[in-house]
C-alpha cells in the first residue's frame, strides 16, 4: 500500500521548512513535480506518510515562479491526501487569507501554528482546542525545533494520518472565517512592534538607511572573499594531497588520469562550495532576520532605473559568488520580464571563478605598486562588472516593448527576529548541494575534455604545445592576435571555457612556470616579469576586459536555457557576450598600444 502524501504549505518564513527539517532530518530527496522544471523536497516520516515541502506562498493566487509551483501542486488534488498548513502564530492576521483559500479546497487540513516560543515570551497563549472546534479541522501550536518530541503534535499527527488512511473528509463547521485572534494581535503588535520599529527608524532612515545597508553589503563581500578563503585553501590542499598520493601509487596505469585529470576536475568546482555556502548562510541570515526585505526596499528605487525591482537584489548578489545559484534564485521574481532581465545580466556579474584570473592579471600589471593600488584596481574591476551588468539591463529594458506596470514592490517587512541558525545552515547546504549537482557534472566533463585535448596526441616530451588544444589555438591565432594574445596564451584562454580559473594554471603550464612563482592573493608582493613574461600591458588590459564580459561557463549556458525555457536565449547570450568581450578587448588593446 502506498503511503499517504501530505503537502506542507505556508507563507515564506512561517517555519514550514524548519518543521520539515526537524521532522525528517537528513532523509530528504528533491523531486521534480510533473510539468515543472523546479523541484520540491520530499521525505518519508516514520514509514507512515510522505511529506512534501512546497515553496513558500502568501496566496494561491500565484505571483512568483515559486508560488506558481505551489499552486500547481495544490491544484493536482488527486496527487496528495492531506495538507499541513503552517502559519506563523505572530503573523496570523496577515496569513488568514491563505487559511481561507486552503480550507475551501475541501481536503483534510491540519493547521500548525509556529513560533510558540515567541508567544510564550510575550505571555500570550492560543486556545487551539477552541479553534479546532470552531473550524472543524485540527489546530496545534508548537516550536518547530521541538516538533519531533512534541507529544500533543505527535498524537494529533497520528490521528490525522489514520483519518487520511480511512479516506475521511473534513467537516468544516464555520464558513464565515472571521479572523478569530484579534485580541492576540493587539498583544503581539505592542510586544514585537516596539523594538522592531526602533531598529527600523535607523534601518529605513531616509539618509542613513542606505549607507548602513552598503556597510552590511561590504561585510558580505569581505566574508565571501576573506572568511571563506581559509576553507577554500583547506579543500584545495586536501585535493592536492589526494592528487600527490594517487600519483605516487600504482593503479594499473590509471594513476596519471586520476591525478592529473579526474581529481583536478572534481576539485575545480568543489573548491567553490565553501564560498557559495557562506554566501547562502549570509543571505539566509539576512532573510530570516527580516533585514533582507529592508534591503530590497532600500534598493528598489535605484534598481528601478534599470528596469529591475528591489527583489532582484538577492539573485544579483548571489551572482558575485556563482551564476548557478543566482539563476536559480530568479524564481522568486514575480515579473517574467524582470526575471528575463536578471537572467540576461547574471553572467556579467564577476563570479568567484573570475577572481584568480583578475588577481593574476592585476598582479602582472601592478605587482610592484603598493597593495592599496592593487586592491583599488580589483575594486574598479568589480565596479566595472557591475556597471556593465546594469547597463545591459537598462539597454535590454529599453529594447523590450514597454509595459504599464509589470513588477511590483508591495513587500511585507516582517518584524525583526533572531534567525534559527540551524535552518539557515541547513538551507545553505541544500542550495550548495544544488550547485554541486547541477554545475558539477558539466564542469567536470568539460575539464576532462580539456585535459584530453591538452594531453593528446602525446609527444616524446609530453609537451602541451603539440596537443590538440595547441593545434586549435594555433588555428585560432588570427582570432587572438588582434587582442595581443599569442598562441600559447590562446591555449590558456580556450581552457578557461572549462572553468575560468583554469586560465591561470594552464598559462603557467604552457609557459613552463613554477606554480609557486604565481601570486595567489592580491596582497602578495609580486615581481612583475617573474610571471606573465610574454604579455604586454595592452594585452593584460585587454584580457581583463575580456574576462569581465565573456560568458565562458558552459554550465551557466545550460542552466540559462533550462530556466529561461529557450536555447536561443542562452545561445544568444553566449554569442553576444563573447562577441562584445572580444570587441572591448580589441578596442582596449589597440588603444593602450598607442601609448
Amino acid at each position, binding site marked *: 500500500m502506498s503511503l499517504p502524501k501530505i503537502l506542507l504549505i505556508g507563507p515564506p518564513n512561517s517555519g514550514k521548512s524548519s518543521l520539515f527539517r526537524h521532522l525528517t532530518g537528513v532523509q530528504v530527496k528533491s523531486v521534480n513535480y510533473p510539468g515543472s522544471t523546479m523541484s520540491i523536497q520530499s521525505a518519508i516520516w516514520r514509514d507512515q506518510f510522505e511529506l512534501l515541502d512546497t515553496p513558500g506562498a*502568501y*496566496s494561491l*493566487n500565484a*505571483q512568483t515562479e515559486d508560488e506558481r509551483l505551489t499552486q500547481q501542486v495544490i491544484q493536482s488534488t488527486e496527487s496528495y491526501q492531506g495538507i499541513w498548513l503552517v502559519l506563523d502564530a505572530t*503573523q496570523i*492576521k*496577515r*496569513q*488568514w*487569507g*491563505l487559511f481561507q483559500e486552503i480550507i475551501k479546497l475541501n481536503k483534510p487540513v491540519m493547521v500548525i501554528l509556529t513560533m510558540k516560543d515567541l508567544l510564550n515570551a510575550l505571555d500570550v497563549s492560543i486556545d487551539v482546542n477552541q479553534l479546532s472546534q470552531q473550524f472543524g479541522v485540527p489546530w496545534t501550536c508548537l516550536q518547530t525545533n521541538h516538533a519531533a518530541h512534541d507529544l500533543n503534535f505527535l498524537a494529533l499527527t497520528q490521528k490525522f494520518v489514520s483519518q487520511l488512511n480511512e479516506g475521511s473528509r473534513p467537516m468544516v463547521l464555520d464558513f464565515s472565517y472571521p479572523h478569530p485572534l484579534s485580541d492576540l*494581535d493587539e498583544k*503581539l*503588535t505592542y510586544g514585537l*512592534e516596539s523594538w522592531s*520599529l526602533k531598529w*527600523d527608524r535607523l534601518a*529605513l*532612515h*531616509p539618509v542613513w*538607511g542606505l549607507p548602513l545597508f552598503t556597510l552590511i553589503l561590504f561585510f558580505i563581500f569581505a566574508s565571501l572573499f576573506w572568511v571563506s578563503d581559509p576553507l577554500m585553501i583547506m579543500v584545495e590542499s586536501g585535493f592536492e594531497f589526494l592528487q600527490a598520493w594517487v600519483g605516487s601509487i600504482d593503479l594499473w596505469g590509471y594513476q596519471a588520469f586520476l591525478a592529473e585529470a579526474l581529481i583536478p576536475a572534481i576539485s575545480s568546482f568543489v573548491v567553490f562550495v565553501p564560498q557559495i555556502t557562506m554566501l547562502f548562510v549570509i543571505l539566509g541570515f539576512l532573510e530570516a532576520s527580516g533585514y533582507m*526585505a529592508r534591503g*530590497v*526596499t*532600500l534598493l*528598489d*528605487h*535605484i534598481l*528601478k532605473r534599470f528596469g529591475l525591482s528591489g527583489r532582484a537584489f538577492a539573485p544579483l548578489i548571489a551572482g558575485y559568488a556563482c551564476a548557478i545559484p543566482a539563476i536559480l534564485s530568479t524564481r522568486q521574481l514575480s515579473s517574467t520580464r524582470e526575471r528575463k532581465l536578471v537572467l540576461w545580466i547574471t553572467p556579467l556579474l564577476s563570479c568567484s571563478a573570475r577572481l584568480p584570473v583578475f588577481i593574476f592579471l592585476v598582479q602582472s600589471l601592478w605587482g610592484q605598486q603598493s597593495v592599496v593600488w592593487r586592491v583599488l584596481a580589483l575594486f574598479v574591476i568589480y565596479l566595472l562588472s557591475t556597471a556593465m551588468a546594469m547597463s545591459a539591463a537598462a539597454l535590454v529594458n529599453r529594447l523590450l516593448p514597454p509595459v504599464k*506596470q509589470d513588477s*511590483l*514592490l*508591495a*513587500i*511585507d*517587512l*516582517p*518584524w525583526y527576529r533572531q534567525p534559527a541558525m540551524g535552518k539557515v545552515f541547513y538551507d545553505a547546504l541544500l542550495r550548495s548541494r544544488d550547485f554541486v549537482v547541477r554545475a558539477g557534472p558539466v564542469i567536470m566533463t568539460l575539464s576532462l575534455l580539456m585535459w584530453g585535448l591538452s594531453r593528446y596526441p602525446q609527444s616524446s616530451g609530453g609537451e602541451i604545445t603539440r596537443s590538440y588544444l595547441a593545434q586549435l589555438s594555433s588555428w585560432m591565432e588570427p582570432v587572438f592576435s588582434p587582442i595581443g594574445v599569442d598562441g600559447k596564451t590562446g591555449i590558456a584562454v580556450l581552457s578557461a571555457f572549462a572553468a575560468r580559473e583554469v586560465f591561470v594554471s594552464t598559462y603557467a603550464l604552457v609557459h613552463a612556470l613554477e606554480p609557486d612563482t604565481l601570486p595567489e592573493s592580491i596582497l602578495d608582493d609580486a615581481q612583475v616579469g617573474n610571471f606573465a613574461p610574454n604579455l604586454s600591458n595592452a594585452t593584460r588590459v585587454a584580457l581583463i576586459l575580456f574576462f569581465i564580459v565573456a560568458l565562458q561557463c558552459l554550465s551557466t549556458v545550460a542552466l540559462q536555457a533550462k530556466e529561461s525555457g529557450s536555447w536561443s536565449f542562452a545561445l544568444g547570450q553566449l554569442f553576444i557576450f563573447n562577441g562584445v568581450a572580444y570587441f572591448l578587448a580589441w578596442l582596449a588593446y589597440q588603444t593602450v598600444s598607442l601609448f
Partner: protein
Amino acid sequence: MTELNNMFPVQLDQLGVNQRAEVIRVLDHPLQTRLMALGFTAGVKILLFKIFGGNQTYILQLPSQLIALRQEEAALIEVRSL
C-alpha cells in the same frame, strides 16, 4: 475645515509622514491581489511611517506589520485621512 477634508478620499501618496488614514480601496487589480495576500484590505488603518529615495518609496505601518510600496503603487490606493 480639516474634518471636512478628512471626509474625502485621497491617494495614499498625498499623505505626509506620521499621518494616519483608513484604506478605502485599491484601484489596480494585480496590486490589490498582492496587497490582499499581505492582509492589506479596505478598512485597515494605516500610518505613513517613512518616505525615502526621493519620495519613491513609502513605508506603511499597519496594526501588526510594515509594508513597503513604490510611489506609483501608493498613488493607486485611495484612503481617508484620519
